[in-house]
């Protein structure tokens, strides 16, 4: 005898509230399980932690380096490129290093030749870093990290150095190697807190220089030490610090973007001719611009990224297996709980959701710690380069997303096992 099936009782249901409550429920249950087995959980979390840490620490460091390089680049004026014996960034092996080492230095004579012959260029400047240390005035002295740069007048626009007060270098200063200097804004305010620095004397590496100009303040947003230098005539520096072992850098500013490529070609041609590079042979100097530097950096980071991807995948797979193991143990330990839940109306999929959520929570706890440590670790590079710290939000998201995926992938089997336990057997389980 079968009674006619009637409509089930109408019950107000809130599917959203079920999911929300399930998530909350699973979260607290997972945290409870974590707290109940601290050591076991910690060991399991370690794998996820390491995996996510390695991703975040490297990505943060990369971003800091990129910031740093972009910061350097922004010091060049627009449409400006630089020529040096040494590349700006080199990520190859020692054999390449030797190649650069054997190159002839870029001398003052070569630089002057470029200045004369580069007809397409708007400005050509020569430059060298001579020294760095403490600079003092009669009022105060600086920390021992002030750079001393030798330059020619053409270097000012190419470097985007704008005179705020006084004047810049002129040809006479360079030709007669005068003991004059131009101070960066911060340095000037530090050394002469009370009034103008113009006409005052500063002592750099034991020699007195007369201040003839102060630069405008650079944008402070990109880091602290953009204004922390003094500029002297290039010739003054060469006389004092020696010219023999020194290779200068040449800064060339093109007239406009359209003329940029032609200007690069012209300058390369001039240099190849005076440095007697055989036709067909490689340049024996490096030309770099903002674009080429960024390109080089991207090539380098690509390699690093692949390395990180491999290391972190291994760590995460190992972690996933650990998660699966702890979840299987947890399912066995909580057989009775599963029976109780089934008896009071949990469907298989509710149990499934619960255990997958627990696996995700477990992974996310490890992941969150990994992210925090990774950001801290990666920003040590920021501290080192003295640039502002970064938080790579996109990678934080990706890292946490990966955690969830690991939780889902490796939590599914234990959850499936839990959901398919027989309710009566599990209720009897001791």
């Amino acid at each position: 005898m079968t009674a006619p099936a009637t409509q089930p009782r109408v019950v107000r249901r809130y599917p959203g509230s079920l999911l929300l409550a399930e998530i909350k429920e699973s979260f607290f249950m997972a945290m409870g399980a974590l707290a109940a087995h601290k050591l076991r959980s910690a060991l399991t979390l370690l794998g996820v932690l390491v995996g996510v840490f390695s991703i975040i620490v490297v990505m943060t460091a990369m971003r800091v380096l990129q910031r740093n390089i972009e910061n350097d680049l922004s010091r060049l004026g627009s449409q400006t490129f630089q020529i040096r014996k040494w590349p700006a960034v080199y990520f190859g092996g020692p054999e390449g290093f030797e190649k650069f080492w054997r190159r002839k230095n870029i001398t003052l004579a070569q630089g002057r030749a470029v200045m004369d012959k580069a007809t397409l260029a708007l400005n050509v400047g020569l430059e060298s870093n001579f020294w760095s240390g403490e600079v003092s005035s009669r009022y105060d002295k600086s920390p021992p990290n002030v750079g001393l740069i030798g330059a020619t007048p053409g270097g000012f626009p190419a470097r985007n150095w704008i005179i705020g007060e006084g004047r810049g270098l002129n040809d006479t200063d360079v030709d007669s190697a005068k003991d004059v200097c131009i101070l960066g804004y911060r340095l000037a305010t530090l050394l002469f807190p009370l009034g103008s620095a113009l006409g005052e004397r500063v002592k750099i590496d034991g020699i007195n220089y007369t201040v003839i100009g102060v630069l405008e303040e650079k944008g402070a947003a990109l880091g602290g030490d953009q204004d922390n230098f003094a500029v002297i005539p290039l010739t003054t520096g060469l006389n004092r610090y020696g010219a023999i072992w020194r290779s200068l850098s040449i800064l060339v500013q093109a007239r406009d973007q359209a003329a940029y490529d032609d200007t690069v070609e012209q300058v390369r041609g001039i240099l190849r001719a005076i440095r007697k590079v055989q036709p067909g042979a490689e340049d024996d100097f490096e030309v770099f611009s903002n674009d080429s530097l960024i390109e080089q950096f991207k090539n380098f980071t690509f390699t690093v990224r692949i390395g990180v991807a491999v290391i972190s995948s291994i760590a995460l797979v190992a972690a996933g297996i650990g998660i699966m193991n702890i979840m299987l143990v947890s399912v066995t330990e909580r057989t009775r709980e599963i029976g109780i839940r089934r008896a009071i109306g949990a469907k298989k999929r509710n149990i499934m959701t619960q255990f997958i959520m627990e696996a995700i929570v477990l992974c996310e706890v490890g992941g969150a710690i990994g992210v925090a440590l990774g950001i801290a670790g990666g920003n040590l590079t920021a501290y080192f380069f003295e640039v502002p710290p970064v938080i790579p939000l996109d990678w934080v998201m990706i890292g946490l997303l990966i955690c969830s995926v690991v939780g889902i992938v490796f939590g599914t089997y234990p959850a499936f096992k839990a959901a398919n336990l027989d309710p009566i057997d599990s209720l009897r389980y001791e």
Partner: protein
Amino acid sequence: MSLIHLEKVTRRYQMGGETIHALREVSFTIARGEYVAIMGPSGSGKSTLMNIIGCLDTATSGTYVLNDVNVSEMDDNQLAEVRNKEIGFVFQTFNLLPRANAFHNVELPLIYAGISAEERRRVTVEALTSVGLADRMTHKPNEMSGGQRQRVAVARALVNHPSILLADEPTGNLDTKTGEEIMGVFEELSRQGNTIILVTHEEDIARHARRIVRIRDGLIASDEARR
């Protein structure tokens, strides 16, 4: 009108080569509002019968009609829904979640019923108050006495306003005095019109019910109304 109707319900277990008949063609009917005690020696099939009535288990053959719905043809999800809405279980060993407090234990069936948070709170507090545990809501099972635990279990069983309350030896783990206390709760629930089915070994406990069904070897031996 019958709330529960069993027709030739058989439950067999396969143990190795042996077939165990836990229930043999059991037929009976229980009307809404009845208070029934099921008695019988150990291994006679009482728990098996309760599990089938409670939709935790399904009969090997025969039909079970609950509330005019044929339960024997339902799938797993539908059975879970019936357990959630129509059945309230009380077990001998309480079967509370050890890490959850009283409130949360009672709230759980409402979560699976998909009821909104504020309504859950209201109904849960109501259920706990009705069993006299309004001041123990944040206590965990191991912070409560056996009688209190069983009352939490009763509150949990009642919270969804089920059609039937199933209790498998609810006083089995309690001393006589606490057992009587719990029986008092059942008495009150019965008076309010709840349908109760109770499994017990003890004649004293069975006396609270108004109908006693005796089982032996999977068969109904007697079925009589008291007084």
